[in-house]
Structures are given as structure tokens and as C-alpha cells.
């Protein structure tokens, strides 16, 4: 596990050290290295031999349940159909009508193209918060239904759930994010969203992967706390508020008052969104956003190690206190 952390650090140091001599090949290698490293890191930290199998079982359970609600299923397809029709029929004029006034108003305060800024926030935030929710909310839900007590005395145990839920969520998230970005690319003026080369695609994936690991770890800390302190889950809304207000998701960080700057820099998603906007908005590659990636890699390491440690430790504490059962 430590080797993975060292590898990430080496890659980042190398990138920093080479500076101007950095080549596209090394850029690609760094992105691929970080991407693989973060995946392996999570797998070794939480996956175990049961993880993928449990992930498939969870996905299957969710899918079967979804299919069993026939009316809901019809409504989902109707909604998707309507959405596509509205996009096709109204398209860019719709975006113009919805966002131009706010874009023009924001132009008084910032040089940023606010409409693009806002849409990127809208695209990436649900994905990242969804990952947090999957490790905090869904696991808490399993505990509330008494599932922890059913799963503890099994070979895979409750410890297999965090990785399994992450995996089962990722597939859906990638599809949603890709679809959203494609829709925005269609709606926005040409050049507003730029994935200039395969390198920026790789960079985008890397930043998102690191942010996902970070949010997953934070969610696990919350689940661990909930196993011991039943009402701790309410603190999630505070984290959500802090991120939305100070991490530059919908409001540019430079518009925040001076006192908020340190707080903003201390939030992992500030770095993630800054990097994502550079990559998608200006075609940057990984080396262009190295400081943000380094900060995010550190957050990912701390948060995932910390998350799994807290989760396991507090599960044991809950066994001692007798609070493993649901509410």
C-alpha cells in the first residue's frame, strides 16, 4: 500500500522536476500511472477477494428492484425522451434564455465565462457528491435496515461493502457524466468545452478518479461515525454546504471574501474543479495542472486511508458498544 503512495509521489516529483523539459509521453505516463495507481490503491485497501462479486450482487439487486417498479420505469423513459426532445427542439436558445442573464450579471464580477463555469459544475458535482453519498448514505441505509447484522457474520463481511458500492456506482456515474458532457458540448458554442487531445481526456479521467477516491474516503469516515453515533450522518449536510459554497463548484473562488480563501484551499474539491475547468475549458493536460493534481493526490491518500481506518475501527467500537444494529 505504501508503495502505491510512494509511486504517486515519485511520479508527481518527476513531473515537477522536469518542468519545461516535460514531454507529452511522460505526461501520458503520469496520467496513466496515477489513474492505475488510484484504482489499485482502492482495490488493495478495500476490495479484497469478495469486493467485485459483492459489487455485482449489489448492482444486480438494484437493477432488479428498479425493473420491478414498472410505472417508475416507464416514467424514467418518458422523462429521458422529453429531455432529448427539448434539447433537440430548443437547444442553444434554451441555454441562452436560462443562463445568459446570470452569465451577464456575473461578468461584472469575474472574467470567467460563467455559463461554461456553471455547466461544468452542474456536470461534475452530482458525480462527486454521488460517490460520497454512496459510501456515506447507502452504507448508512444498509445499517439502518439491519443489514450490517446480517452481513457481519459472513465471509465477505460488511468490509466488502464500501468497495462494492463504489464499483457499482462508478459505472452509472461514468455514463451519466459522459452523457451530460455530450449534451453540453452540443448546446454550448463551439470551443466552450475542449478536450483538445487524448492527453486531456486522460488528464480529465485522472483528476476525476482522484476526486472520487477522496470523496469515497470522506463518506467512509461518516459511515464509521454513524455506526457509533447514530445521528452523526446529519453532518453530511454541513460538508455539502461547505463544498457548494467554498469549493468553486457554482461560484468562482476568486469572488469569495479574503477570509474564505484558506478554507477554500483546504477543501479537496476546490482543486478538483479548478483542474477540471482548466482541462475542459482550456485544453490543459496533466502537467499544466500539476499543483492541483498533487494536492488532490494527497487528499485522496489521506482520505482513503483515513476513511477505511475509521470505518473498520468504529465498526469494532460499535461491536463493543452494541450499536451495530439499525436505528
Amino acid at each position, binding site marked *: 500500500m505504501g508503495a502505491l503512495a510512494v509511486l504517486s509521489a515519485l511520479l508527481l516529483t518527476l513531473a515537477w522536476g522536469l518542468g519545461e523539459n516535460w514531454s507529452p509521453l511522460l505526461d501520458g505516463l503520469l496520467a496513466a500511472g496515477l489513474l492505475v495507481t488510484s484504482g489499485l490503491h482502492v482495490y488493495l485497501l478495500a476490495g479484497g477477494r*469478495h469486493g467485485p*462479486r*459483492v459489487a*455485482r*450482487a449489489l448492482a*444486480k*439487486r438494484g437493477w*432488479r*428492484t428498479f425493473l*420491478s*417498479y414498472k410505472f417508475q420505469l416507464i416514467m424514467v423513459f418518458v422523462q429521458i425522451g422529453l429531455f432529448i426532445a427539448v434539447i433537440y427542439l430548443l437547444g442553444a436558445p434554451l441555454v441562452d434564455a436560462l443562463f445568459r442573464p446570470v452569465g451577464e450579471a456575473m461578468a461584472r464580477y469575474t472574467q470567467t465565462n460563467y455559463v461554461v463555469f456553471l455547466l461544468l459544475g452542474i456536470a461534475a458535482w452530482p458525480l462527486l457528491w454521488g460517490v460520497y453519498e454512496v459510501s456515506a448514505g447507502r452504507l448508512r441505509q444498509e445499517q439502518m*435496515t*439491519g*443489514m450490517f*447484522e*446480517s*452481513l*457481519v*457474520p*459472513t*465471509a*465477505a*463481511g460488511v468490509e*466488502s461493502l464500501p468497495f462494492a458500492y463504489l464499483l457499482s456506482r462508478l459505472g452509472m456515474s461514468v455514463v451519466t457524466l459522459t452523457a451530460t458532457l455530450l449534451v453540453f458540448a452540443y448546446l454550448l458554442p463551439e470551443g466552450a468545452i475542449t478536450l483538445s487531445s487524448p492527453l486531456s481526456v486522460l488528464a480529465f479521467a485522472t483528476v476525476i478518479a482522484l476526486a472520487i477516491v477522496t470523496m469515497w474516503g470522506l463518506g467512509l469516515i461518516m459511515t464509521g461515525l454513524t455506526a*457509533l*453515533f*447514530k*445521528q452523526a450522518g446529519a453532518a453530511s449536510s454541513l460538508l455539502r454546504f461547505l463544498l457548494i459554497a467554498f469549493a468553486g463548484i457554482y461560484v468562482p473562488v476568486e469572488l469569495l471574501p479574503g477570509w474564505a480563501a484558506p478554507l477554500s484551499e483546504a477543501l479537496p474539491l476546490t482543486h478538483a474543479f479548478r483542474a477540471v475547468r482548466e482541462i475542459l475549458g482550456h485544453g490543459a493536460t496533466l502537467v499544466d495542472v500539476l499543483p492541483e493534481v498533487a494536492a488532490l493526490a494527497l487528499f485522496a491518500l489521506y482520505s482513503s486511508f483515513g476513511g477505511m481506518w475509521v470505518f473498520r475501527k468504529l465498526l*469494532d467500537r460499535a*461491536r*463493543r*458498544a*452494541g*450499536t*451495530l*444494529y*439499525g436505528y
Partner: protein
Amino acid sequence: MTRPSRALRETATFIARPGLDRGVTGTAVRARNLVFTYKPSGFSGKKLPPSLTDVSLDIREGEVYGLLGPNGAGKTTLIKILATLLLPDEGDLEILGASLPGGEDLVRPHLGVALAEYERTFHFRLTGRENLRFFASFLDVPRHEVAPRVAEVLEQVGLTEAADKMFLTYSTGMKHRLAVARALLGKPRLLIFDEPTAGLDAATSRALGDLILRLAKEEKATVLYTTHRLEEAGRLCDRIAILRKGRVIAEEAPAALRRLSTSVSVIRLRLDAVPDTTVAALRSVPQVTGVYVDGADTVRLHVTSVEEALKPVLGAAERERRRVLGLVTTEPSVEDVFLQLTRDEKEVAAPAR
């Protein structure tokens, strides 16, 4: 040498279950001086009394072991400790040869647990079969063995025909049987059932109890069984432990348990009616240690001696102007022993109704 296929390796693991020596000690569970107190979270600082104060027991491999006790005696707490859901504050615990805490990973693959509040852990919109397949993913059942194993346990509990119906359409008895099937899925060596017949009518309860007994013998598993149905425990269990206020106060085979209570004799008295005033009058007889109403017209009296109690008991009934329709003296049942042993010292007679 050719490497065995993955399926073959998985099957070997499923059957051999490495890590624990089967039958070396002949003891499935060895508990010594277990103490446990629930520690509620929050800022109230409220301290709860201990749920288990000093529990020691040995459960032999292959036996059906019953846990009896009134509400709050500590049965569920003990069950949860043995199911590795709780960690005792004090005491030594060995399950299937592995010491706990520490040996959880060795023990858990061999456990089959059905807790009392099992219902909400099944997914209501999945079928019985789908629910079991979901839970099989958490066990060491090899992937290619899941479908046949699920079909096998469904067959064993008599749910084959209802296997593909949604769980929400199941009757209470069917839900209980599905919980038993889930506990059997991983071919466990130790089956733990917390009141598996709670909420069932007498006939269904008897059938389910018999089913558990038969399956335990078929699977050669050790069974730990709690129930409020005392005669059921007497019928099914090889040995019974009676818990009272967090302690084991008796641990015997059902027949020996009946003999254990030498201080109690039982008079079954059939009267024309059993109003509260009559119960109070019978309770006031010095030789009567307990009065229990059995149906609309019968009371069961625990007395220190039938010879000494008979006259004052009939006298009390007469003073109450009750007509005596029948009187039988009987051997104490498991239920009588249970009531005798778990009677609170402060209560001269347990509540009659």
C-alpha cells in the same frame, strides 16, 4: 503439474473450510465469564445495567442447545456475541476452536445466523430465490455452486414453489422459512437461531421447529436456539440453559431439568371461572409459590408439597365460592421449571395473567 481450475479450487475451499479443525475439541462454543453492557451513544451519559453479568457455557459439536429466559434475561445479547456481532467486555470466548476477539475471520465463514429482526434485511421486491442469491455473494459459496445450492436450501425448507414470488407476497411462516434457508446457505457448522418461531401459530411453529431439527441433523451442524415456547425447547433441544438477569442459572437436558426442580410440585385445578379475586386468594395460600392461569377455567399452582397444599387450596376456592370441576397433580414441565427458576425473589408469585 496442472493447476486445478478456479471452480475446483473454490469448491475445495467450500468443502474443506481451512482454518478450523473440525471436531478436534468436540466443543463448538466455549464461553467463560462473559460480561456485556450496552453503551448507548450520545451525550446523555446514561449508563445501562449489564445485560450479561457472568455467563459460562459449553456447547458440544452436533448438539441442539436451547437458550431460555424471560424478556431482558440476556438471550439476544448472548446470541449476538456468539454470532460475532458484539464483543464482550470481559470473559473468554472460543467458537469452533478459534478465540475471539481476533479469530472472527476464521469463525464467520462457518456461521449461519437467523436473528429475530430478520424481515427487513430481505429485499421486499426481490423473489425468495433472488434474495438468497444476493446473500450467497457474501459467503464462500463458489459462483457455479450458487444456483444449485440456493435451489437445494429452498427445497429443504419447502419453498421451491414460492421461490420465484416476491418476498412481499410471503406469509409470516414462509418468511421465517426463508430466514432459515438463508442461515443454511453456506453449509454452516454452527447455526444460530434467535426465536425463529416468534409470531407463528402453534402448528406452523411446531413444523418449523421440526424442520430446523431435521436440517441440523442432515447438515451435521451444531444449533443454538432461543425460544419463548418452552415446550418447544424441551422437545427440540438436547440441552437447555436458562438465563436470568444475565446469568445462566441452570443448564441441563430437558428431562434432567424437570428433575432439577425438586422444590416444586404442580396442581392443575379446573374451576367454573378464574376471576382475579380467586387468583389472589390462591396466591395467599402459604404453600403456594406460584399461580399461573391456563386458559379460561384452569390454574396451574406451584406448591411446595401437594399433601400440605391440597386442603388450604381447596379451602381458598370454596371461600371464593368457586366450583371445583377437576384437580390433577402433575410432574413439573419444562415450563414449570422455567417459571420456578426465573421467578423473581421479590415476587412471591409471578403475575398470573
